[in-house]
């Protein structure tokens, strides 16, 4: 059943799957519970970037607020313009990275009457990998403002370059990600575990952790299976606006019974749709690939291209990423397996050769006609690798369009103009 949703730019995004509604309903309940635990009950909790070992916090049963999720939550409350303005007033130049700083801005604003949940209380710790220049400063200041500790993780260099990394990362992860990089993160995670034990008085339960790791593998296996089916099916059975929540919401809860069950339910619903010939678009003409973070302020952009032109976004990174980057054979070393999952989560999406070779492989697997690549103007990390990926795709016969836009800041975004821009590009390529 279609569920049109209004977005901040006022454009409709369409959601067709029953399990999408189930996922968003679960997330609503989860958020209410999270708020109760963190704000009302003042339980220890953590703020962490998406590319950090969430599994450690889940094992401790420490509530975790992902910075990216919190940013999206703030955006959904229509508060981004206010907080960008706060940063401007505090003297931060307007070109400073927006994606990771909304939460900091909300804290610095210090206005409980406006802030979601009245603002976040003091967390036990903030955790981030140092994958870009600004994150150390954003999280450092945020920790200072909240009166707590920032626990940074190194993002070490990577000299073993295997363009086909995604074919062997599930099992040969030590070879793919380098033992020294894995070992460094293992040592850092051990220090983080010690810190959490010290601060919370809880004990890290190794058995529970291993069980969680197996659960994550099962969950990601279902998502990977769904990704394979969607890539193979003609026409595309599931739109990007259904793919994203059914991957990302369980991802925040990875390894939990609900997340495993939901991933299975999603896989099954995808299979049913394929078996019954149900398509995301009634008129699929062009199969598109979306490269970059989700366009959180205007998911209606995707639906508009599908509805008006039959240009269907068959692929976005979140779902196909689950297979190669999350599934890990444990090899009796679960912490090392986890480190291999986390230590390159960002790198494979933003650095050559890992990014471009995977994108080309995925485009070929999914029969992609053209790619649209998001290039945020003031964010080196998010821009990184996009031009080389564009070249690689074009060399492989896949036309690729770069669109300069931010994933959370809608200031420079014009929905109609951007939809027309993509349509013009597809016409130029003879695809419409």
């Amino acid at each position, binding site marked *: 059943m279609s569920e049109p949703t209004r977005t901040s730019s006022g454009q409709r995004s369409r959601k067709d799957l029953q399990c999408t509604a189930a996922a968003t309903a679960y997330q609503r309940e989860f958020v209410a519970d999270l708020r109760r635990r963190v704000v009302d009950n003042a339980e220890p909790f953590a703020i962490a970037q998406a590319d950090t070992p969430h599994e450690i916090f889940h094992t401790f049963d420490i509530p975790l607020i992902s910075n990216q999720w919190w940013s999206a939550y703030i955006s959904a409350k229509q508060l981004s313009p206010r907080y960008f303005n706060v940063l401007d007033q505090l003297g*931060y130049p307007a070109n400073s990275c927006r994606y990771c700083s909304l939460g900091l801005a909300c804290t610095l604003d210090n206005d409980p009457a406006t802030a979601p949940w009245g603002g976040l209380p003091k967390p036990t710790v903030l955790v981030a990998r140092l994958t870009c220049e*600004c994150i150390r400063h954003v999280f450092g200041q945020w920790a200072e403002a909240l009166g707590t500790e920032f626990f940074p993780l190194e993002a070490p260099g990577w000299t073993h370059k295997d363009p086909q990394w995604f074919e062997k990362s599930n099992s040969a992860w030590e070879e793919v990600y380098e033992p020294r990089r894995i070992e460094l993160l293992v040592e850092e995670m051990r220090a983080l575990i010690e810190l959490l034990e010290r601060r919370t008085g809880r004990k890290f339960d190794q058995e529970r952790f291993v069980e969680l790791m197996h659960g994550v593998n099962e969950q990601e296996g279902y998502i990977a299976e769904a990704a394979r089916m969607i890539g193979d099916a003609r026409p595309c059975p599931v739109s990007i606006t259904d793919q994203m929540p059914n991957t990302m919401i369980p991802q925040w809860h990875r390894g939990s019974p609900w997340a495993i069950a939901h991933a299975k339910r999603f896989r099954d619903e995808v299979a049913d749709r394929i078996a019954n010939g149900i398509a995301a678009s009634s008129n699929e003409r062009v199969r598109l690939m979306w490269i970059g973070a989700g366009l959180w302020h205007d998911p209606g952009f995707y639906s508009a291209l599908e509805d008006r032109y039959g240009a269907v976004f068959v692929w976005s990174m979140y779902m196909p990423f689950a297979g190669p980057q999350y599934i890990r054979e444990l090899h009796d070393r679960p912490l090392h397996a986890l480190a291999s999952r986390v230590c390159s989560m960002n790198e494979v999406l933003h650095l050559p050769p890992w990014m471009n070779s995977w994108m080309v492989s995925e485009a070929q697997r999914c029969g992609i006609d053209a790619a649209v690549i998001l290039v945020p103007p003031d964010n080196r990390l998010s821009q990184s690798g996009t031009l080389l990926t564009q070249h690689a795709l074009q060399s492989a016969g896949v036309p690729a369009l770069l669109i300069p836009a931010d994933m959370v800041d809608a200031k420079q975004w014009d929905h109609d103009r951007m939809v027309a821009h993509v349509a013009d590009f597809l016409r130029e390529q003879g695809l419409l």
Partner: protein
Amino acid sequence: MNPLPSFNDRLSLLLNDPFAAVKGARNERIIGYVGEDVPVELILAANAVPLRVRGAANAPTPRADRYLESAFMPELRAVAELWLTGALDFLDAVVLSRADDSAQRLYYYMCELQHRGICGGPLPLLYDVGTLPRQTSRAHTLESTRRLAAALGANLTETALQRVARRERLLDRVRARRTDAAPLAGSIAWRVQQASGYDWRAEFDDAAERWIETAPSLSGPRRILLAGDLPPDERLHLAVEAAGGSIVAELVESCGPARVAHANPLVTIADYFQQRRSVAVSMRMNPSWLVDSARAVRADAVVAWLIEEDESLPWEIPRQMQSLAAAGIPALLLSRQQWRATDETLSQLRAFVACVEPAR
């Protein structure tokens, strides 16, 4: 013969043609390095000639623009352009450090461009230095230092360490002369600092040591501390001097504590580079870093110069500006600047310096 003109000529030659000194190298490997976070000792210990690689600020970068996105630091874009045009083909390798975000990204880009046959040129090498004050990062940096030494073929000896130590003493002397009551002009000191990376021969040190004895001083200029990003040339310095000032110190590149000698010289090197801090991290660690630094060099005012592509300093500079204001130290913030300062910026800078009250 007066040694002053000859050293000034040497500086001009190097600054006009950074490859001038290494062009004379015969049967020697020449290894480039980008930034101050690379252990030159290891290049020297590999019996190779080190060369600091920079790009020109006013040169177009059409080839680099095809592969590097807009947020790359322009210095690295200029280096990429040199690489892609073949201007670096005489180098055996170029060492890039993970301490610099754009530099470490350039490492991956150049590896890929070479892998795809889009360009050739020197072998890109990454110095995977840890950036956190933690034992695990220290151990990782030591292992990275060993790997870099092996990749370069370095057999570390006292000679290489002493060579670098001598150069550092020389540059310390130049820095000390800048902070005298009658200081060495900032623009000249800047030229020495820049040119020193292009010529690691002992003759450069010999000539500089002779020159520094007689180098001219300025009489009571307005003393300015420059902080922020690394300018590509001395135009900011000259603008300050045109308004009756002199830049007595720059905080524009990472800096570290004094080296602590260890029985294993690789440990000495690794610890030194792991403990170096970027300008932004130094600001993060000390909210009054600019105030403390300004007082240490008796600066009358501070100029903070941040280029558009810098992603870290914008997060720290507001707090530093507040502490400068609280300390009553005049400060000019030039943010979102072009790498090559515009005429408008230079005018603004001159006007600011002209209004600074020098302490007497």
